[in-house]
């Protein structure tokens, strides 16, 4: 297999890559010109035909989402860009925003044209200071160059992009939580329906897309649908609901690997290839114990499941929730799975917004149970209790409003199912590994 030439990351690391001048030199804003020459419906169709699926976690087809907007709507339509990248292990958006913000802004401008929006809100995670500075500088450059403003690119259309910093909450990455937060309210996800495409930000039709999705839109317009479809995995003919996994994807590799980092690879690369060929294997000659396929809310792959492809369907085949944000976190055999799981649960109980009872109380309870287990007071009955609690929370059983609790439940479900012997051994040995956990605040 020939080495994949990065597209999204092509300019990352080059000098002054965040500047408009260098972006223009590399052929920037040509895609926007192309798009503005087309009608909005044509742009939407191009994106729809490309099979682009949202990079934010759920993998919903982007073009299809755009067509959910009401037809012939007279009032404003908003585009909200989700840059509240809070899933543990994920940093692909950060790299794009810090090193190549114009690529994103171009994608936003194209998308706004496609959905007939004059206003985009970019909801940025508070912790990303450099991203904020670089994005704001890029937006200012765009206004000065006439790319944004009352006459965007001389098309006579109005386009404004507002950069909004969040205040540090995981739940603001949920699309309706993000909308509530943008409106200045507590980020409690909304009841759906109505979906944001019908009634979203300020009660107007709103499309919420991820940063990486926007970058992909730029390249689809630049290089065409055929190019995009030549990368990745076509739909599984046996699964009529599979929309395929086309295009390049930014994999965030972290944890116990020799070369952690953000790798741009075609969708469908296996975890083994990513870890051992690109990531340089596990340090100190240790073995893989578990791999998080796409942010800890997606669950765990065990060591013998590393050959499944990391596309939108692959992780689901072995009981994970999905591809998520493609943040691959490697856990080697020096770490107890109990500690890993405790860390996950602690994160989610801290980040639960507290709106729905099962998630608010369930995540905190699971953390308490694991805390007790780690202080040497666990019983095997606790495993069944953990499995029961994690099975009863989420939108899949229908007990919560948003999907955060599915994400909170999944690592528990996966860990208990795939690593039960280790839990039992841990409990039987009366081990105490309670120490300062890392990662979660």
């Amino acid at each position: 297999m020939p080495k994949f030439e990065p597209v999204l990351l092509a300019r990352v690391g080059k000098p002054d890559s965040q500047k408009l001048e260098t972006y223009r030199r590399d052929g920037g804003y040509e895609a926007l010109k192309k798009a503005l020459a087309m009608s909005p419906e044509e742009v939407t169709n191009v994106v729809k035909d490309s099979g682009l699926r949202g990079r934010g976690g759920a993998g919903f087809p982007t073009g299809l989402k755009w067509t959910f907007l009401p037809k012939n709507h007279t009032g404003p339509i908003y585009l909200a860009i989700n840059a509240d990248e809070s899933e543990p292990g994920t940093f692909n958006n950060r790299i794009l925003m810090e090193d190549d913000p114009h690529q994103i802004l171009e994608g936003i401008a194209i998308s706004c044209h496609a959905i007939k929006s004059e206003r985009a809100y970019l909801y940025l995670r508070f912790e990303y200071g450099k991203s904020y500075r670089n994005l704001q500088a890029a937006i200012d450059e765009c206004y000065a160059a006439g790319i944004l403003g009352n006459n965007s690119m001389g098309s006579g259309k109005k386009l404004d992009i507002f950069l909004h910093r969040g205040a540090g909450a995981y739940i603001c990455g949920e699309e309706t939580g993000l909308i509530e937060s943008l409106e200045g309210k507590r980020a409690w996800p909304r009841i759906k329906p109505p979906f944001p495409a019908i009634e979203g930000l300020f009660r107007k039709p709103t499309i919420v897309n991820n940063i990486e999705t926007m970058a992909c839109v730029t390249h689809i317009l630049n290089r065409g649908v055929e190019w995009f479809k030549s990368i990745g995995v076509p739909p599984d003919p046996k699964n009529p609901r599979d929309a395929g996994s086309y295009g390049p994807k930014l994999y965030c590799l972290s944890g116990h690997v020799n070369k952690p980092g953000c790798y741009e690879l075609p969708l469908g690369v296996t975890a083994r290839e990513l870890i051992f060929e690109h990531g340089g294997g596990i340090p100190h000659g240790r073995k893989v114990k578990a791999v998080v396929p796409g942010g800890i809310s997606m669950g765990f792959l065990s060591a013998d499941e590393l050959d499944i492809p990391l596309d939108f369907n692959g992780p689901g085949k072995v009981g994970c929730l999905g591809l998520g944000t493609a943040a691959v976190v490697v856990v080697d055999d020096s770490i107890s799975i109990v500690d890993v799981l405790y860390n996950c649960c602690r994160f989610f109980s801290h980040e639960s917004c507290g709106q729905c009872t099962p998630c608010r109380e369930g995540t905190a309870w699971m953390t308490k149970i694991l805390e007790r287990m780690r202080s040497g007071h666990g019983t095997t009955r606790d495993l069944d209790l953990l499995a029961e609690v994690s099975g009863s929370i989420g939108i899949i059983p229908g007990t919560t409003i948003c999907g955060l609790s599915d994400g909170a439940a999944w690592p528990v479900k996966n860990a208990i199912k795939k690593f039960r012997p280790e839990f039992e051994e841990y409990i039987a040995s009366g081990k105490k590994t309670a120490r300062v956990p890392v990662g979660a605040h």
Partner: protein
Amino acid sequence: MPTVIVNDKPVEIGADEKLNCVQAAQRAGVEIPTYCWHPALSVVASCRMCLIEMGDKKPDGTIAMQPKLFPACQTPVKDGTVIVSNSEKVKQAQKGTLEYLLLNHPLDCPVCDQAGECFLQDYSYRYGRGYTRLQEPKTLKPDKDYIGDQITLFTDRCVMCTRCVRFTREISGTAELQVINRGSHEEIDIFPGEPCNNKLAGNVVDLCPVGALCSKDFLYKQRVWWLQTKSSTCPDCSTGCSIRVDQTGDVVKRLRPRHNPKAQGHFMCDDGRFGWKYIHGPDRLTQPEMRSPQGAKSHDWDAIQPALRAALEGAVTRKASAVAAVLSPWMTVEEAYLLAKWLKRLSPQTRLALGPVRKEGGDDCYPKDVRGKALPNPKFTIRHEKCPNRKGVELILQHFQGSVIPFDTLLSEVESNQVDTLFLTGGDPKGWITESQAAVLGKLKMLAVLDLLKSPATPKAHYVLAGGSFAEKDGTFINHAGLAQAIVKAIRSPENARPDGRILWELSGRRGLFHATNLRREIGQEVPSLAALSVGDLGEHGVLLTERPTVAAPVRGEKVTAS
């Protein structure tokens, strides 16, 4: 008609009714437990107590059920909706939610005010699992020192249904309460220095389904299972909120609002809620008094009533136009009718005036905006007319006299000696007569005062009749919109005071006992403008005067619900 199937039982709903699954199930007599849902507030579907299984009945008779659970409060019903609330899956979900709600709940029912009317208790009993599997310490949240003058918050008992938060945002519009923190550390709180002191604040206590928000006034006063409750009507303004009067041992403990779509809706204001203290106050007239010219006094009803009647009848014989009565807007329709009819029977020349109608500012409408200005389409109104029954008394006066004489006119007639015999009724607990007005009364040859509290008029009176408060009598109040509602006797009058209706019944020489329902029928048949009262029993929601009586006057003792 659209048909909804609730637990295999078909129930019809109105064609243009917008019901959710909870309401549809209620129609079928099935209770779906809820915490966060309240018919007057927006839907948040966050407590997850009302989870049900839902499906659709296709025209061909097949039923397609959805694979996951749905919150009943958020799910609208349409023709063919199938609701299942008694399946094993639903029961498991209910058990689960209750277990979660009780995880960090202190279970301090023995010292909790809500115990006995607590939805956590009730639902745990009906739907819960009865034991906890939590082995870890509970998450403790300290109680709040101060969140308002009338309400207190036990943070640890809270189930985060956010009804109170939504109430202050949507109904009062004052938005003092909010949710702080996140996850299981979440609490209800106020913004520092901005306590919840709006005039509707007391309602959050009723809204709270658990013992988190308690009324400072009622706190630790009585276990609720000892309370005896009567449905009544609030007397503090002309809105006439439907209320419940809770009492034990002839002492009122609290008033609560009662849902009445015809009157005020679900809520009541704090003026009314806490405004009943005077009925047990030190200024209460507790016994009748007769002062003869020699100065001798009597406190015996049996002596006073015949003497007063004789004095009044004598005065009418002497000069009927010099005899007058003032009918207070705090009287019930029945009392006004008895007094007016008695005097007019003695002589049509006797004069009837309307007592002083206390008005304060303008109507106080809610919700308010951030600057305290009322928004359009008010959801709750505290009226500026601070008496319950001006309309009813006026209708009586118009029937018997054709016109309504204002109180001031009558006083000037007293001053110019046109009137020398006066029957005064009071009842306004905030005072209805000033010292200077009362000074005029000294000129009267005979003054009888029927009142609740001591007033400047009482020392001038030759006959003081100790009447009853709204909680001590049966009768009818007609509110600003012409809605006739019943007030019901909840307690006995203190010491030797008597309900006004009984006093006037006996004074006017009627036989038998005062019985509000029968008297209401009599009024309905005699006074055309009050024909709606001929139903007798006004029912829970009262009767609008514009409503034609649909039921013929029923036989005595028969229970009739108003249409």
